[in-house]
Each structure stands twice: as C-alpha cells, then as structure tokens.
C-alpha cells in the first residue's frame, strides 16, 4: 500500500466529492469520511434510507463503512460513491472484464458483485497498485511491451494479470491467452498484453 494515511492529510468531509482528485482520495485517512459526505449530499428519501445497509470492508488498505442500497454493485460504489474510476464500466454484465478488481486476492468482475456482499472483504483496485514513482512490475511491463492503445481496458487487464501470475497461470503464451480471456481489448493489443504478462511473470519468478 502506497497511500499512507498521513501522506497528504485527511480530506475534509465538506469537500465537494466530485472535485476530489485521485491523489486527494488516496491521501484520505479513511474513505468512510467520503462515503458519509456523499450520503448527506444526496439527501435520499426516507424509503431509500430504510432500505440501505451498512457494510464494513477495506479498499486498498483503507477501512470503508458503506451505507448503500442492496442493489448497488461494487463497481458503482467504487466509481460513483468513492470516485475510484480506475475500474471501468464497459459492458456492466460481466462480458468485458474492464471492471476487474481483486476481492480477497481473487480477481472478480465488480459489476457482478453487490457491495453488500463485500462485508469483511479486502478489495484492491488499480488505485492501490503501484505509484507514479514506483510502478508495480506488471504496470511497468505493460509500458515496456506497449500493451495498450486507448487504455480503457488497462486497469482491468493489469489487475487480472497480477492475479493470473499469482495463480500460476502465466507459464506460457497459450496459458496466458486462456487465463486472460476474461479481459477484452477493443484495440486488440493481445500479443503485447501476452508479452507483458509473460515478462512480468518471469521477472517475479
């Protein structure tokens, strides 16, 4: 984890959430502050309040106290409530992999998971992987192998690749192709992505 609580000072609860930069967010002492601020700003109806549930979990090492309707997916919570927009909403039906995050170390489609199902979980998003000064080896490898064009699928590709390597499914190109198939790349950078994953796996071992 790169985002130590004291690095940039805590974000104020009165701060306009939309205006928060990613860096500010990462510096926040606890994302629960932001979630609470949002809940107040949205002024939900009494019915909505009654239907909401509290969920305690962790995102990128920070404790989260979410107060959400059961229908809110983890992806929507990350993007709309916390403005962690690295996870992308490509298809919103589990077909593209752009929303891939790690939950308790396992890669999942965050569009196919309810926030209320995250109780007690440890979630990792691309915002918690590496820093501009010190990239994660998989991020570095994607740059070195030119493994993206538009970049839209890249956060999902990188989280998926980290898990793929961790699982031991990056032994050869065929295995990488099979075990990275849950991440679609419209620019079709597949050969470069495969090279990047293989190189990162090699460096690790």
């Amino acid at each position: 984890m790169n985002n130590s609580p004291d690095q940039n000072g805590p974000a104020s609860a009165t701060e306009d959430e939309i205006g928060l930069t990613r860096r500010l967010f990462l510096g926040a002492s606890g994302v629960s502050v932001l979630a609470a601020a949002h809940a107040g700003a949205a002024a939900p109806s009494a019915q909505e309040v009654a239907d909401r549930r509290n969920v305690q979990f962790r995102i990128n090492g920070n404790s989260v106290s979410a107060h959400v309707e059961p229908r809110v997916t983890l992806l929507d919570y990350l993007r709309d409530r916390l403005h962690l927009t690295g996870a992308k909403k490509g298809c919103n039906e589990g077909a593209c992999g752009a929303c891939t995050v790690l939950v308790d170390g396992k890669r999942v489609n965050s569009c196919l998971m309810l926030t209320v199902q995250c109780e007690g979980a440890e979630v990792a998003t691309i915002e918690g992987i590496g820093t501009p000064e010190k990239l994660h080896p998989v991020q570095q490898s994607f740059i070195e192998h030119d493994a993206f064009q538009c970049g839209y699928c890249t956060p999902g590709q990188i989280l998926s690749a980290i898990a793929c390597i961790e699982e031991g499914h990056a032994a050869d190109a065929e295995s990488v192709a099979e075990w990275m198939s849950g991440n679609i790349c419209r620019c079709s950078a597949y050969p470069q992505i495969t090279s990047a994953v293989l190189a990162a796996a090699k460096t690790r071992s």
Partner: protein
Amino acid sequence: MRNFAYIVAHGPDDAFAADGVNQMPIAGGTELLNWLRLGIAAPADLIDISRLPGLDQIRRSGDRVSIGALATLNVVGEHELVHRHASVLSQACLAAASPQIRNRATLGGNVLQKTRCSYFRAETPLPWGCNKRVPGSGCAARDGNNERHAIFGWTDECVATQPSDPVVALSALEAQVEVVGRSGRRLLPMADLHVTQAEAKAAGRDPARTESRLATGELIVAYHVPVRARARSAYVKVRERASYEYALVSAAAVIELDERSCIGRAAIALGSVAQKPWRLIEAEQRLVGLPPIREAVLPVLRSAMSSARPLAHNRYKVAMASGAAARAVVEAGERA
C-alpha cells in the same frame, strides 16, 4: 435494477423461504444480477446463501466425490480430487465463462443459469414474443434467429437450450444432485434435474417456463460423483472463439476400456442441443466393443442423431454434435 431487501442466510432453513420469485437465493450472483438488470427476475428479497457454512467443501466419501454447491467453478475445476476422478468436470468448469466469473460463480448456481437466447435476454419491455418471459406472447426464436437453439426436446412454445458446461459433464458422470427443501432432503440424477419443453408439456406444465424438477424453496446443496476406478473422461466444447464463449454444442464422454482396449462402458451427454443435457443412451450401448477411434465411433454417434429435429438455422448442430461426441470419446480413450 429495482431495489430489493438483502437478507443473509445463516442456515439452510433461512434459504428455504425463497420461493424463487419474490424471494430468491443469491450466491456468486454472476447470473442473477443480470436477470435483475434485464427484468428477467424482480424479487422483493435476495437471500444471500454464500456464507452458509460447509457448503463449499469437496471431499471423497467412499465410492463418490462430493462437491458442495457453493464451491466455485475455479475451485472445482482445479481441485485435485476432481482432476483425478472426474477430469471431464474439471475441463467443463474451466471451459466455462472467464477466470473472473469462475471465481464467483458456484457449481450450485451454474446449473440453474438460463438460456442465452437473445430474445429471452432482451431488456423489458420485450419488443417481441417470449413465452419464458411473458406467458402466451409467443416464441420469436421458433421461426426467427434460431442458430443457437435446440435440436431435441423443443416445442412450438419454446426452443431454448440449457447453456451450462458443468451440467453436461455431471450428466455423463451420472452424478446425483442433493437438494434440500421444506419437505426434507432428496437425491435426483443429474440427467433428471432439467426438463425439456416437450417433457414439461407432456406433464401438463408450462413448456416454456418449466426448466427443472426443483420444487419451490428447494436448494441444491451438493453433487455426488460416483468414482469408477477405470473410467476416463473428456469434455469437448465447440465455440466461435477459443475461450470465454458459450458452446455452439458440447459433448462429455466417460468411458471404460476392456482388456482389449475397446470400449467396455460409455456414457455420453451433449450440451447446448436441448433444455437439458442430452444423453445418448442407445448409442452408448452400441459403442461397447468398439475401439475408441474416430472411424469406429463416429457412425454410431451419427446415427444417434437421427431423432434430432433441427430448426431453420441450426441444422449444422446435428453433424457438429456427433463430431464433438466422437472427439470426446477419442480424447477420453487417450487419457491415462
């Protein structure tokens, strides 16, 4: 997505409250959330069964391997016991969906996924007829785009197929499904869990909306796969891309070889050709005594397709299914 109440089940009894319409169980949710988005289901309550203790276990007990319904497809697919005693199931699990989905999707939910028919999967309100979605509205696929639809067991009311990969493997393995409900616990053969439209109609049920023999409130809790010391098995999935795609057709073969290396026993199931895994019972008997080579088994499997009733656009499935079955037999025979 309409909102719903979320209830965490602490024991199986909590889950039996689910009537399947107003209260629905959720485990991995990879299929259910899309039903909610499309309007295929709109329950008032979701009952989360994913934290029920002990239901994700895989263990050998006597002459069977028992797999808890909450075991995920990746866990089942990579489990040593499944590899050793039911490699066809391992293959089928790992050929399903994507690594991300397989980390959430459970074997219990997978077999109850619904057809991929694009008319069925449209967002409500439907711009065309679908008897599964709106009773009495017709079946747009019957005379429409039906390349992916059934060649066995369909009726004019519905021509959908069951799309699961593990279902096909479990059927060929002659696994039993353990279900628990308000009136107790029971076992049913995997091949009897699902029903075709024709079977439902013959039983006086709605042919489009009756998909399984599960009763209201019944929950799949485990699968029991018989261990046959000499069995070898293989799964063949034919699809339009090599990974992360539904089958056009698939085939699972579980065979035993005799002392002459000829087929002593065979169980074969086809996938994506009907609303249930389609066993080739007669052909299985005729394969006995033949060597597990393509030239020998293909004629038998071809003739097994003579009862197929292809639709306007899926005649290709007839030859493709017998070819896939032949490949599965050959590949099973080549396994140690």
